[in-house]
């Protein structure tokens, strides 16, 4: 067992974990953060994407021990005081989901993408989300939602 200290969605945790425990299993099985789903388990689909120290990562491909002393944000930590994150709201308003399984990962990857590029073209959104698969193939509305969120975030930015 290895002792880790992490901050997940604003709350500090200390836990003893087996070194082989994957971050996604730690989040779901230990902390009950089941908002982060497991899709392919092979680093392909991006459904399990979370932010690790602010950057998008696939949590099925990171060991919990590698996240020691890091800050993690999951889909459960992006809203504040009951108000959705602009990306969440845009996904809702543009109906950017069909079955919804890829949605948490899509939203986390989009939040990271918009940090680098606050006004992405359609092509930039498609490139930026290439690591996130929508098995329902509902990409048109997803791209639309990310661009809508970008616009709203630019308007509300101080």
């Amino acid at each position, binding site marked *: 067992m*290895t002792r880790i200290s992490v901050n997940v969605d604003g709350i500090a945790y200390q836990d003893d974990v*087996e*070194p*082989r425990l*994957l971050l996604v*299993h730690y989040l779901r099985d230990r902390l009950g953060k089941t908002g982060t789903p497991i899709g392919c*388990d*092979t*680093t*392909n689909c*991006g459904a399990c*994407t979370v932010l*690790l120290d602010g*950057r*998008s*990562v*696939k949590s*099925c*491909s*990171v*060991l919990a*021990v*590698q996240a020691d002393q890091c800050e993690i944000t999951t889909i459960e930590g992006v809203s504040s005081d009951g108000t959705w994150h602009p990306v969440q709201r845009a996904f809702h308003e543009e109906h950017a989901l069909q079955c919804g399984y890829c949605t948490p990962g899509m939203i986390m*990857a989009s939040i*990271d*993408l918009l940090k680098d590029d606050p006004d992405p073209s359609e092509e930039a959104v498609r*490139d*930026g989300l*290439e*690591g*996130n698969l929508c098995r329902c193939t509902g990409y048109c509305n997803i791209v639309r939602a990310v661009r809508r969120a970008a616009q709203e975030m630019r308007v509300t930015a101080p």
Partner: protein
Amino acid sequence: MIPASFDYLRPSTLDEALTMLAEAGEDAKVLAGGHSLLPLLRLRLAYPAALVDVGRVAELRGVADRGDHVYIGATTTHDEVVHSPIVKEHCPLVALATATVADPAVRHRGTFGGSLAHADPAGDLPSVAVALDMEFVVHSPTGRRTVPASGFFLDYLESALEPGEILAGVRVPKLGPGWGFHYEKFHRTAQAWATVGVAVAVRRSNGTVEEARVGLTNMGPIPVRASGVEEAVRGAEAGESLREAAGRADEGTDPPADLHAQPDYRRHLARVLTHRALLSAAAHPTG
């Protein structure tokens, strides 16, 4: 799947890492970003007894301008390489190829040295390493040695790293002004490995190609230089003769057969992609 159990060791210096690796024995593996190793562990294709996590060894990370070459620390992430002003200015081919590795989330974790040490011929960086004659700086408990890219890749997933050795960083020689670069890759889906990739650097002067370096991805068990093309383009006009030269791209290669392509199709791809890469590189000389 869940990986088999292993001991986890986290050194904070390179010396400590070398000691830990030596003490852990032959069944230990070095863990950096883990984006090649962890998938292998999860598929239980590998079950090391111990992992030495070099992810927090500060001296292994970062990019430095060292005069005649650029030094890229082994655990520098792909994302850091792509956004490094030093890499962009002095070895743009590295930035171009690295930007096509997998997808953004993978590039945030995966490391430059890790993917080279993994020695996957379908990876994008090994062909760039041989095209640019990079040098690999390898540390062991008894000292340090330098391995040229031409001697680093031995076979499929097999590098010249001995048990107990750690790749500390890579020297990328600066080519100087007048060179143009391109990395052309064919893959079935956005984040898939290259079916075939071609890394090209071309030095042009007055409409004539003076010199070219061409590295091939996934045209055999190790990355190779397309020396036939390099020979044929020397002194050629940057026009139709490039197509003719690219026709020699698959000379001496041993492309694999897999679900994505048969060898003859890969040979065809190598010729077509090399032509495109030469045209593109010759059209945009820098400096």
